[in-house]
Protein backbone atom coordinates (compact mmCIF):
# COMPACT_ATOMS: atom_id res chain seq x y z
CA UNK A 1 0.00 0.00 0.00
CA UNK A 2 2.59 2.59 1.12
CA UNK A 3 4.93 1.31 -1.51
CA UNK A 4 2.30 2.12 -4.12
CA UNK A 5 1.94 5.68 -2.86
CA UNK A 6 5.68 6.22 -2.79
CA UNK A 7 5.93 4.95 -6.32
CA UNK A 8 3.05 7.19 -7.42
CA UNK A 9 4.76 10.20 -5.89
CA UNK A 10 7.99 9.55 -7.74
CA UNK A 11 7.97 12.15 -10.54
CA UNK A 12 9.38 10.01 -13.40
CA UNK A 13 6.99 7.19 -12.58
CA UNK A 14 4.02 9.54 -12.39
CA UNK A 15 5.07 11.29 -15.58
CA UNK A 16 4.88 8.02 -17.52
CA UNK A 17 1.76 6.77 -15.73
CA UNK A 18 -0.12 9.98 -16.53
CA UNK A 19 0.65 9.57 -20.22
CA UNK A 20 -0.87 6.09 -20.20
CA UNK A 21 -3.91 7.26 -18.23
CA UNK A 22 -4.84 10.29 -20.34
CA UNK A 23 -6.62 8.41 -23.17
CA UNK A 24 -8.51 6.33 -20.61
CA UNK A 25 -9.98 9.55 -19.28
CA UNK A 26 -10.29 11.54 -22.50
CA UNK A 27 -12.00 8.97 -24.75
CA UNK A 28 -14.83 7.83 -22.44
CA UNK A 29 -15.25 11.46 -21.36
CA UNK A 30 -15.68 12.72 -24.91
CA UNK A 31 -18.06 9.89 -25.80
CA UNK A 32 -20.22 10.65 -22.76
CA UNK A 33 -20.24 14.38 -23.54
CA UNK A 34 -21.14 13.71 -27.18
CA UNK A 35 -24.06 11.51 -26.10
CA UNK A 36 -25.15 13.86 -23.30
CA UNK A 37 -25.03 16.94 -25.49
CA UNK A 38 -26.94 15.30 -28.33
CA UNK A 39 -29.58 13.81 -26.04
CA UNK A 40 -29.85 16.97 -24.01
CA UNK A 41 -30.25 19.21 -27.03
CA UNK A 42 -32.32 17.05 -29.38
CA UNK A 43 -33.81 13.94 -27.78
CA UNK A 44 -35.04 15.14 -24.42
CA UNK A 45 -38.41 16.84 -24.19
CA UNK A 46 -38.50 20.50 -23.25
CA UNK A 47 -39.43 21.63 -19.77
CA UNK A 48 -43.09 22.34 -18.96
CA UNK A 49 -42.30 25.86 -17.77
CA UNK A 50 -38.96 26.91 -19.21
CA UNK A 51 -39.34 25.42 -22.68
CA UNK A 52 -36.05 24.86 -24.46
CA UNK A 53 -34.13 27.27 -22.24
CA UNK A 54 -33.73 24.61 -19.57
CA UNK A 55 -31.28 22.72 -21.80
CA UNK A 56 -28.46 24.96 -20.61
CA UNK A 57 -28.54 22.84 -17.44
CA UNK A 58 -26.52 20.20 -19.32
CA UNK A 59 -23.52 22.53 -19.31
CA UNK A 60 -24.29 24.64 -16.26
CA UNK A 61 -24.57 21.88 -13.64
CA UNK A 62 -21.43 19.91 -14.68
CA UNK A 63 -19.44 23.17 -14.81
CA UNK A 64 -20.65 24.23 -11.38
CA UNK A 65 -19.90 20.76 -10.02
CA UNK A 66 -16.35 20.85 -11.38
CA UNK A 67 -15.81 24.39 -10.13
CA UNK A 68 -16.20 23.00 -6.61
CA UNK A 69 -14.45 19.66 -7.19
CA UNK A 70 -11.36 21.33 -8.65
CA UNK A 71 -11.16 23.57 -5.61
CA UNK A 72 -11.42 20.61 -3.26
CA UNK A 73 -8.62 18.86 -5.17
CA UNK A 74 -6.53 22.00 -4.83
CA UNK A 75 -7.19 22.21 -1.09
CA UNK A 76 -6.68 18.50 -0.40
CA UNK A 77 -3.51 18.57 -2.51
CA UNK A 78 -2.33 21.56 -0.52
CA UNK A 79 -3.08 19.86 2.79
CA UNK A 80 -1.27 16.66 1.80
CA UNK A 81 1.61 18.73 0.49
CA UNK A 82 1.91 20.64 3.75
CA UNK A 83 1.62 17.63 6.04
CA UNK A 84 3.55 14.95 4.14
CA UNK A 85 5.82 17.35 2.21
CA UNK A 86 4.75 15.71 -1.01
CA UNK A 87 5.76 17.87 -3.97
CA UNK A 88 3.44 16.08 -6.36
CA UNK A 89 0.45 17.03 -4.18
CA UNK A 90 1.36 20.70 -4.47
CA UNK A 91 1.69 20.25 -8.22
CA UNK A 92 -1.94 19.02 -8.30
CA UNK A 93 -3.08 22.36 -6.91
CA UNK A 94 -0.98 24.31 -9.37
CA UNK A 95 -2.36 22.28 -12.28
CA UNK A 96 -5.99 22.32 -11.12
CA UNK A 97 -6.37 26.05 -10.43
CA UNK A 98 -6.72 27.41 -14.00
CA UNK A 99 -9.09 24.54 -14.90
CA UNK A 100 -11.22 25.22 -11.84
CA UNK A 101 -11.32 28.92 -12.66
CA UNK A 102 -12.40 28.13 -16.23
CA UNK A 103 -15.29 25.92 -15.07
CA UNK A 104 -16.33 28.49 -12.45
CA UNK A 105 -16.43 31.12 -15.20
CA UNK A 106 -18.47 28.78 -17.41
CA UNK A 107 -20.94 28.10 -14.58
CA UNK A 108 -21.36 31.83 -13.94
CA UNK A 109 -21.82 32.70 -17.62
CA UNK A 110 -24.30 29.90 -18.41
CA UNK A 111 -26.24 30.73 -15.25
CA UNK A 112 -26.38 34.38 -16.22
CA UNK A 113 -27.57 33.62 -19.76
CA UNK A 114 -30.32 31.40 -18.31
CA UNK A 115 -31.21 33.90 -15.59
CA UNK A 116 -31.97 36.74 -17.99
CA UNK A 117 -35.08 35.18 -19.59
CA UNK A 118 -36.13 32.99 -16.63
CA UNK A 119 -35.60 35.14 -13.56
CA UNK A 120 -35.64 38.42 -15.43
CA UNK A 121 -32.11 39.40 -14.45
CA UNK A 122 -28.54 38.71 -15.56
CA UNK A 123 -27.16 38.99 -12.07
CA UNK A 124 -28.49 39.63 -8.57
CA UNK A 125 -26.15 40.89 -5.90
CA UNK A 126 -27.34 39.55 -2.59
CA UNK A 127 -28.21 36.09 -3.79
CA UNK A 128 -26.05 33.81 -1.65
CA UNK A 129 -25.44 31.17 -4.35
CA UNK A 130 -24.47 33.67 -7.03
CA UNK A 131 -22.26 35.71 -4.73
CA UNK A 132 -20.41 32.74 -3.21
CA UNK A 133 -19.74 31.27 -6.66
CA UNK A 134 -18.27 34.62 -7.72
CA UNK A 135 -16.09 34.60 -4.58
CA UNK A 136 -14.95 31.11 -5.66
CA UNK A 137 -13.76 32.58 -8.97
CA UNK A 138 -11.86 35.30 -7.09
CA UNK A 139 -10.29 32.66 -4.84
CA UNK A 140 -8.97 30.88 -7.91
CA UNK A 141 -7.59 34.17 -9.24
CA UNK A 142 -6.01 34.89 -5.86
CA UNK A 143 -4.47 31.43 -5.72
CA UNK A 144 -2.95 31.76 -9.20
CA UNK A 145 -1.74 35.30 -8.52
CA UNK A 146 -0.13 34.24 -5.25
CA UNK A 147 1.62 31.31 -6.93
CA UNK A 148 3.02 33.36 -9.74
CA UNK A 149 4.16 36.16 -7.42
CA UNK A 150 6.57 33.91 -5.50
CA UNK A 151 9.60 32.72 -7.47
CA UNK A 152 10.72 30.02 -5.05
CA UNK A 153 8.56 26.96 -5.83
CA UNK A 154 8.67 25.54 -2.30
CA UNK A 155 7.57 28.86 -0.77
CA UNK A 156 4.88 29.36 -3.42
CA UNK A 157 3.58 25.86 -2.70
CA UNK A 158 3.26 26.53 1.03
CA UNK A 159 1.64 29.95 0.73
CA UNK A 160 -0.87 28.89 -1.90
CA UNK A 161 -1.71 25.68 0.00
CA UNK A 162 -2.66 27.77 3.03
CA UNK A 163 -4.82 30.03 0.87
CA UNK A 164 -6.53 27.00 -0.71
CA UNK A 165 -7.27 25.50 2.71
CA UNK A 166 -8.69 28.76 4.06
CA UNK A 167 -10.97 29.03 1.03
CA UNK A 168 -12.52 25.58 1.53
CA UNK A 169 -15.16 27.14 3.75
CA UNK A 170 -16.44 29.02 0.70
CA UNK A 171 -17.02 25.78 -1.21
CA UNK A 172 -19.17 24.59 1.69
CA UNK A 173 -21.07 27.88 1.53
CA UNK A 174 -21.58 27.56 -2.25
CA UNK A 175 -23.03 24.09 -1.78
CA UNK A 176 -25.37 24.82 1.14
CA UNK A 177 -26.25 28.44 0.26
CA UNK A 178 -29.57 27.42 -1.28
CA UNK A 179 -30.53 25.44 1.83
CA UNK A 180 -29.39 27.76 4.61
CA UNK A 181 -30.82 30.99 3.27
CA UNK A 182 -33.62 32.10 1.04
CA UNK A 183 -32.27 32.60 -2.46
CA UNK A 184 -33.28 33.34 -6.00
CA UNK A 185 -31.32 30.30 -7.16
CA UNK A 186 -33.31 27.06 -7.00
CA UNK A 187 -32.39 24.23 -4.66
CA UNK A 188 -30.68 20.91 -5.35
CA UNK A 189 -32.00 18.92 -8.30
CA UNK A 190 -29.34 16.45 -9.31
CA UNK A 191 -29.08 14.14 -6.33
CA UNK A 192 -32.66 14.56 -5.16
CA UNK A 193 -35.39 12.09 -6.10
CA UNK A 194 -38.50 13.14 -7.95
CA UNK A 195 -37.17 16.48 -9.15
CA UNK A 196 -36.48 15.52 -12.73
CA UNK A 197 -37.84 13.03 -15.26
CA UNK A 198 -35.55 10.04 -15.79
CA UNK A 199 -35.09 10.72 -19.51
CA UNK A 200 -33.97 14.26 -18.67
CA UNK A 201 -31.75 13.07 -15.84
CA UNK A 202 -29.78 10.37 -17.68
CA UNK A 203 -28.13 12.79 -20.16
CA UNK A 204 -27.36 15.08 -17.23
CA UNK A 205 -25.51 12.29 -15.44
CA UNK A 206 -23.72 11.45 -18.70
CA UNK A 207 -22.59 15.08 -18.91
CA UNK A 208 -21.54 15.12 -15.24
CA UNK A 209 -19.39 12.00 -15.63
CA UNK A 210 -18.18 13.04 -19.09
CA UNK A 211 -17.11 16.49 -17.86
CA UNK A 212 -15.35 14.87 -14.90
CA UNK A 213 -13.41 12.47 -17.13
CA UNK A 214 -12.36 15.21 -19.54
CA UNK A 215 -11.39 17.33 -16.55
CA UNK A 216 -9.27 14.40 -15.34
CA UNK A 217 -7.56 14.13 -18.73
CA UNK A 218 -6.84 17.87 -18.82
CA UNK A 219 -5.57 17.79 -15.24
CA UNK A 220 -3.21 14.89 -15.99
CA UNK A 221 -1.89 16.70 -19.04
CA UNK A 222 -1.27 19.88 -17.07
CA UNK A 223 0.30 17.84 -14.28
CA UNK A 224 2.80 16.28 -16.67
CA UNK A 225 3.91 19.74 -17.77
CA UNK A 226 4.02 20.91 -14.17
CA UNK A 227 6.13 17.90 -13.10
CA UNK A 228 8.50 18.36 -16.02
CA UNK A 229 8.97 22.04 -15.17
CA UNK A 230 9.51 21.39 -11.46
CA UNK A 231 12.03 18.64 -12.19
CA UNK A 232 13.79 20.56 -14.94
CA UNK A 233 17.16 20.36 -13.20
CA UNK A 234 17.08 16.61 -12.54
CA UNK A 235 18.88 13.89 -14.40
CA UNK A 236 15.77 11.97 -15.47
CA UNK A 237 14.33 14.97 -17.25
CA UNK A 238 17.65 15.63 -18.97
CA UNK A 239 17.83 12.02 -20.08
CA UNK A 240 14.22 12.08 -21.18
CA UNK A 241 14.61 15.21 -23.27
CA UNK A 242 17.85 14.01 -24.87
CA UNK A 243 16.47 10.53 -25.55
CA UNK A 244 15.57 9.59 -29.15
CA UNK A 245 11.83 9.82 -28.38
CA UNK A 246 12.35 13.39 -27.16
CA UNK A 247 10.22 13.49 -24.04
CA UNK A 248 7.34 11.24 -24.96
Amino acid at each position, binding site marked *: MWKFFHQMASPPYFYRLAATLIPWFAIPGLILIAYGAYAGLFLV*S*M*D*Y*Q*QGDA*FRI*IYVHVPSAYLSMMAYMMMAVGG*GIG*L*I*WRLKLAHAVGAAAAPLGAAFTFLALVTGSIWGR*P*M*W*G*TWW*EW*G*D*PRLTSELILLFLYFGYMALRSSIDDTAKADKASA*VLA*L*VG*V*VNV*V*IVHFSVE*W*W*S*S*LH*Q*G*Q*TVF*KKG*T*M*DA*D*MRIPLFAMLIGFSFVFGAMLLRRLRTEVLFRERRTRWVRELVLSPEGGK
Partner: protein
Amino acid sequence: MKPRQQRMLAVGLAVVGVAVAAGLTLRAFEENMMFFVEISDVIAGEYPSERNFRIGGLVVADSIQREEGSLDLRFSVTDTRCELDVSYTGVLPDLFREGQGVVAHGRMADNDLFIADKILAKHDENYMAPEVAESLGKHVQDQTASLGGRSSECETG
Protein backbone atom coordinates in the same frame (compact mmCIF):
# COMPACT_ATOMS: atom_id res chain seq x y z
CA MET B 1 4.82 14.75 18.79
CA LYS B 2 6.54 14.11 15.53
CA PRO B 3 6.89 17.13 13.21
CA ARG B 4 4.49 15.53 10.75
CA GLN B 5 1.81 15.17 13.40
CA GLN B 6 2.39 18.78 14.40
CA ARG B 7 1.80 19.89 10.84
CA MET B 8 -1.30 17.71 10.65
CA LEU B 9 -2.62 19.36 13.80
CA ALA B 10 -1.79 22.84 12.50
CA VAL B 11 -3.59 22.25 9.18
CA GLY B 12 -6.57 20.70 10.95
CA LEU B 13 -6.86 23.51 13.47
CA ALA B 14 -6.51 26.16 10.78
CA VAL B 15 -9.36 24.66 8.72
CA VAL B 16 -11.60 24.22 11.76
CA GLY B 17 -10.75 27.73 12.98
CA VAL B 18 -11.65 29.33 9.67
CA ALA B 19 -14.89 27.29 9.52
CA VAL B 20 -15.91 28.41 13.02
CA ALA B 21 -15.06 32.04 12.27
CA ALA B 22 -17.02 31.94 9.01
CA GLY B 23 -19.93 30.19 10.71
CA LEU B 24 -20.15 32.82 13.44
CA THR B 25 -19.88 35.67 10.95
CA LEU B 26 -22.61 34.25 8.74
CA ARG B 27 -24.81 33.68 11.78
CA ALA B 28 -24.34 37.27 12.87
CA PHE B 29 -25.32 38.52 9.43
CA GLU B 30 -28.06 35.94 8.93
CA GLU B 31 -30.68 38.57 8.12
CA ASN B 32 -28.49 40.05 5.39
CA MET B 33 -27.74 36.63 3.92
CA MET B 34 -31.43 36.09 3.21
CA PHE B 35 -32.29 37.04 -0.32
CA PHE B 36 -35.90 37.79 0.59
CA VAL B 37 -38.24 38.15 3.56
CA GLU B 38 -41.05 35.60 4.01
CA ILE B 39 -44.61 36.91 3.66
CA SER B 40 -45.49 35.76 7.17
CA ASP B 41 -42.66 37.87 8.58
CA VAL B 42 -43.82 40.90 6.61
CA ILE B 43 -47.37 40.51 7.93
CA ALA B 44 -45.98 40.11 11.44
CA GLY B 45 -44.19 43.42 10.97
CA GLU B 46 -40.71 41.95 10.83
CA TYR B 47 -39.25 43.82 7.90
CA PRO B 48 -36.84 46.72 7.44
CA SER B 49 -39.06 49.81 7.35
CA GLU B 50 -36.36 52.35 6.55
CA ARG B 51 -35.06 50.75 3.36
CA ASN B 52 -36.13 48.72 0.36
CA PHE B 53 -36.15 44.95 0.71
CA ARG B 54 -37.28 41.83 -1.17
CA ILE B 55 -40.23 39.58 -0.52
CA GLY B 56 -40.65 36.08 -1.90
CA GLY B 57 -43.65 33.80 -2.32
CA LEU B 58 -46.15 32.30 -4.74
CA VAL B 59 -48.53 34.34 -6.89
CA VAL B 60 -52.08 33.59 -5.69
CA ALA B 61 -54.45 32.13 -8.32
CA ASP B 62 -56.93 34.60 -9.83
CA SER B 63 -55.30 37.49 -8.02
CA ILE B 64 -53.64 39.18 -11.01
CA GLN B 65 -55.40 42.41 -12.00
CA ARG B 66 -54.11 44.38 -14.95
CA GLU B 67 -54.95 47.98 -15.68
CA GLU B 68 -56.24 48.32 -19.26
CA GLY B 69 -53.81 50.14 -21.54
CA SER B 70 -50.98 50.41 -19.05
CA LEU B 71 -48.29 48.28 -17.42
CA ASP B 72 -49.88 48.67 -13.98
CA LEU B 73 -50.41 45.41 -12.19
CA ARG B 74 -51.72 44.22 -8.87
CA PHE B 75 -51.53 40.72 -7.45
CA SER B 76 -51.23 38.84 -4.18
CA VAL B 77 -48.30 36.80 -2.98
CA THR B 78 -48.56 34.00 -0.43
CA ASP B 79 -46.27 31.71 1.53
CA THR B 80 -49.28 29.36 2.04
CA ARG B 81 -49.98 30.97 5.42
CA CYS B 82 -50.18 34.70 4.85
CA GLU B 83 -51.03 36.84 1.86
CA LEU B 84 -49.77 40.24 0.81
CA ASP B 85 -50.93 42.56 -1.98
CA VAL B 86 -48.29 43.79 -4.38
CA SER B 87 -48.49 46.57 -6.93
CA TYR B 88 -46.02 46.92 -9.79
CA THR B 89 -45.57 48.84 -12.99
CA GLY B 90 -43.31 47.43 -15.65
CA VAL B 91 -42.25 44.44 -17.68
CA LEU B 92 -42.54 40.96 -16.17
CA PRO B 93 -40.22 37.96 -16.62
CA ASP B 94 -41.41 35.07 -18.82
CA LEU B 95 -42.06 32.73 -15.92
CA PHE B 96 -44.37 35.15 -14.10
CA ARG B 97 -47.78 33.53 -13.77
CA GLU B 98 -50.28 32.37 -11.18
CA GLY B 99 -48.84 29.78 -8.85
CA GLN B 100 -45.29 30.78 -9.75
CA GLY B 101 -42.66 31.65 -7.17
CA VAL B 102 -41.69 35.32 -7.43
CA VAL B 103 -39.30 37.66 -5.70
CA ALA B 104 -40.30 41.32 -5.57
CA HIS B 105 -38.02 44.20 -4.62
CA GLY B 106 -39.55 47.37 -3.22
CA ARG B 107 -41.02 48.84 -0.04
CA MET B 108 -44.09 48.61 2.13
CA ALA B 109 -46.76 51.25 1.79
CA ASP B 110 -48.62 51.93 5.04
CA ASN B 111 -51.79 50.12 4.06
CA ASP B 112 -50.61 46.51 3.81
CA LEU B 113 -49.48 47.03 0.25
CA PHE B 114 -46.03 46.23 -1.11
CA ILE B 115 -44.97 48.58 -3.90
CA ALA B 116 -42.52 46.70 -6.08
CA ASP B 117 -40.00 48.32 -8.39
CA LYS B 118 -38.62 45.01 -9.66
CA ILE B 119 -40.16 41.56 -10.11
CA LEU B 120 -38.10 38.40 -10.57
CA ALA B 121 -39.49 34.95 -11.24
CA LYS B 122 -38.12 32.20 -9.03
CA HIS B 123 -37.78 28.77 -10.51
CA ASP B 124 -38.01 25.67 -8.35
CA GLU B 125 -35.81 22.57 -8.56
CA ASN B 126 -38.34 20.55 -10.59
CA TYR B 127 -37.94 19.83 -14.26
CA MET B 128 -40.38 17.81 -16.36
CA ALA B 129 -41.80 17.42 -19.83
CA PRO B 130 -45.07 19.25 -20.60
CA GLU B 131 -46.93 15.93 -21.00
CA VAL B 132 -45.73 14.73 -17.63
CA ALA B 133 -46.72 18.00 -16.01
CA GLU B 134 -50.16 17.67 -17.54
CA SER B 135 -50.68 14.12 -16.33
CA LEU B 136 -49.60 15.16 -12.86
CA GLY B 137 -52.28 17.82 -12.91
CA LYS B 138 -49.65 20.49 -12.45
CA HIS B 139 -52.06 23.16 -13.52
CA VAL B 140 -51.62 26.50 -12.00
CA GLN B 141 -55.17 26.68 -10.77
CA ASP B 142 -54.96 23.31 -9.03
CA GLN B 143 -51.69 24.19 -7.44
CA THR B 144 -52.76 27.40 -5.83
CA ALA B 145 -56.45 26.82 -5.28
CA SER B 146 -55.61 25.82 -1.74
CA LEU B 147 -53.25 28.73 -1.29
CA GLY B 148 -55.85 31.48 -1.58
CA GLY B 149 -57.15 33.37 1.38
CA ARG B 150 -55.50 34.35 4.58
CA SER B 151 -55.42 31.29 6.78
CA SER B 152 -56.08 31.34 10.51
CA GLU B 153 -52.41 30.57 11.16
CA CYS B 154 -51.40 33.95 9.84
CA GLU B 155 -50.49 36.26 12.69
CA THR B 156 -50.45 39.99 12.16
CA GLY B 157 -48.01 42.13 14.05
